C-alpha cells in the first residue's frame, strides 16, 4: 500500500529542487579562480604605451580589476558607480580594456570619466581568456598576496558594491 506513495514522494523531491532552481542563475559561469592566484600578465598601459603593467606591481595591496571596453553598452551602466567608488574609496581600481582600440578607449574615458589608476590594453583578448572572461563587464577583487577573492559577472550594481565588494575589501585589508 505504502509503495504507491513512492511516485508522490519522488515528485515532492523534484518539486523542491525546481523551487530552488528558480532562485539560481543558470547562465552565470562561476570562476574557478576564486582562492587561486591571479594569472600573470604584462600589458602596455593605455595612453602610455611605452610603460607596462603587471599584477606583481600590486602585491601588498588589495585592488580591483575591472574588465571594460568602449564598445560595451552594459559598461556605461556601471561606469558612474565606478567613478563614484574611485572618489570615495582609496582602493586602487585597474581597468582591463578588452579587445578594444586604444583611441576609441581613450575617447570613451574622456567622455564618461576615468576612475582607473590606469588601464591596460588587452587588444587580442588573450589576458581575458587567461582570466576566464566570457563577457564584458566583469570585475575581480584581488587580495594582498595576489589571490583572486571575488568575481562579479555583468555590470556592477549599487547593492553588489555596498553589500559584497566593500565589506570584502575591508576584511581583506585588516
Amino acid at each position, binding site marked *: 500500500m505504502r509503495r504507491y506513495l513512492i511516485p508522490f514522494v519522488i*515528485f*515532492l523531491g523534484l*518539486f523542491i529542487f525546481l523551487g530552488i*532552481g*528558480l532562485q*539560481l542563475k543558470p547562465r552565470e559561469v*562561476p570562476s574557478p579562480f576564486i582562492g587561486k592566484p591571479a594569472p600573470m600578465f604584462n600589458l602596455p598601459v593605455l595612453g602610455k604605451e611605452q610603460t607596462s603593467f603587471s599584477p606583481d606591481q600590486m602585491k601588498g595591496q588589495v585592488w580591483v580589476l575591472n574588465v571594460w571596453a568602449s564598445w560595451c553598452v552594459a559598461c556605461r551602466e556601471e561606469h558612474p558607480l565606478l567613478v563614484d567608488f574611485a572618489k570615495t574609496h582609496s582602493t586602487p581600481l585597474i581597468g582591463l580594456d578588452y579587445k578594444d582600440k586604444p583611441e576609441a578607449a581613450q575617447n570613451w574615458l574622456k567622455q564618461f570619466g576615468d576612475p582607473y589608476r590606469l588601464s591596460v590594453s588587452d587588444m587580442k583578448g588573450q589576458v581575458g581568456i587567461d582570466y576566464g572572461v566570457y563577457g564584458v563587464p566583469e570585475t575581480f577583487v584581488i587580495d594582498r598576496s595576489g589571490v583572486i577573492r571575488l568575481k562579479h559577472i555583468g555590470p556592477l550594481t549599487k547593492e553588489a558594491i555596498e553589500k559584497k565588494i566593500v565589506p570584502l575589501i575591508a576584511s581583506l585589508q585588516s
Partner: protein
Amino acid sequence: MDCPLAILAFSLSLLGTFLVRSGVITSVHAFATDPERGVFILGFLGLIVGSSLLLFAWRAPKANIGGNFETVSREGMLLVNNVLLLVAAAAVLLGTLYPLILDALNLGKISVGEPYFEAVFVPLMTPALFLMGVGPIARWRQSPPIELATKLKWALAASAISAIVAPLILRSWTPMIGFGLLIATWIISSGVTQLIDRARINPSKTWWQNLRIQPAGYYGMLVAHFGVAVFIIGVTAVRGFETEQDVRMQIGSVSQSGGYDFKMVSLKTINGPNYAAIQGQFDVSKNGKSVTTLFPEKRIYNASQMPMTEAAIDSGLTRDLYVSLGEPINESEWSVRIYHKPFVDWIWGGCFLMALGGFLAITDRRYRKKEA
C-alpha cells in the same frame, strides 16, 4: 498500467512547460527567462501532479490484478517495453535536470549536452529495439524461447550478414554506422518474419485471407516499427556519410561535394521588404546534368543592422543539398559552406511513419468495443 502512464504523460508536459518558461535551465529550447511566471507554473504543476499522484496512491491498490503469464511471454515483453521506454525518458529527464540539481546542492556547475544523451540513450534503447523484433511473435501467456529463436533465425542471419558485409561495400565504415545498419536490418527482417508468421496463422486459409482479418492495430504496429527502421537509416546515413566543405569561391569556380558539382554563377545585391542582401546563384549539377539552382543570401535587416545568413536548401528523397554564404575574403572571393546530407529526410519520414502507425492503431475497432 494506463492510469499511471496518463498521469505521467500530462505531468511531463507540464514539467516541460515549466522548464522552458522559467529560465531554470539553459537550453536551445528555453525561450524565456521569467522566474515570476516560473513560480506560477511551478505552483500549478505541484497542485495538479501532486493531487493526481495522491489520488493514485489512494485508489490504485483496489485495481484489478489481471491474468496469469510467464516472464517470457507477450505480456512480459510488453511490460519490459514499458520499463525500457520509461527508463529512456527518465534518462533524458535526468540529464536535463542534473546541472540544476548539482547547482542547487552547491556541488558545482556542469553542463550536459549532446554527447551525454547519445552515450546514454543508444545503449538504453538497444534492448528495446532488439525486442521490437521479438515481441510481436511472442505468444500470450507463455512463449518458449526456443520457439522464438527458431522463428527468428532468418532475421538473425540477415542482420549478421549485413553487419559483416557493410564494412566491405561501404566507402567509409565506423562501428556506429555498422551498428545502425545492423539494427535497421534486424527491425525490417524481423518485421517481414512477423508478417509471414501472421499470414500462416490459420493453415486452412490463404495468406491473403489471414492477413485481411488482422485488426488495424496490427498494421499500425508494423508501420510504426518500419518507421523506426527508416528513422535509424536516416540518422546513420547522415552521421556516417554527410560531407561539409568550407571553400573559397569566385564567379565561375566549382566545388564538389557528395558527387554533386556546385558552380557559383553570380553574386548580386538585392533588396527585400525589410532588408538588403547579397544573393549568390549556384548551379548544381551531377555528372553534367543540371539538378537545381540555389540562391543563398547574406541579409542585413534595415531595422537592426544585424547580418543574417539565409542558407539555400534543396531537399530530396535521398539527400539534402545545402549552400550558405560565409564572408567575403576579398573583392572577388567569398568563403562558402556546402553540405551534402544523404537520407536526412528519412529522419522526418521515419517519424511520420511512426505517427501514422499510431494513428492506424487508434482506428482499431477493439478500442471502441461496446458491452455485449
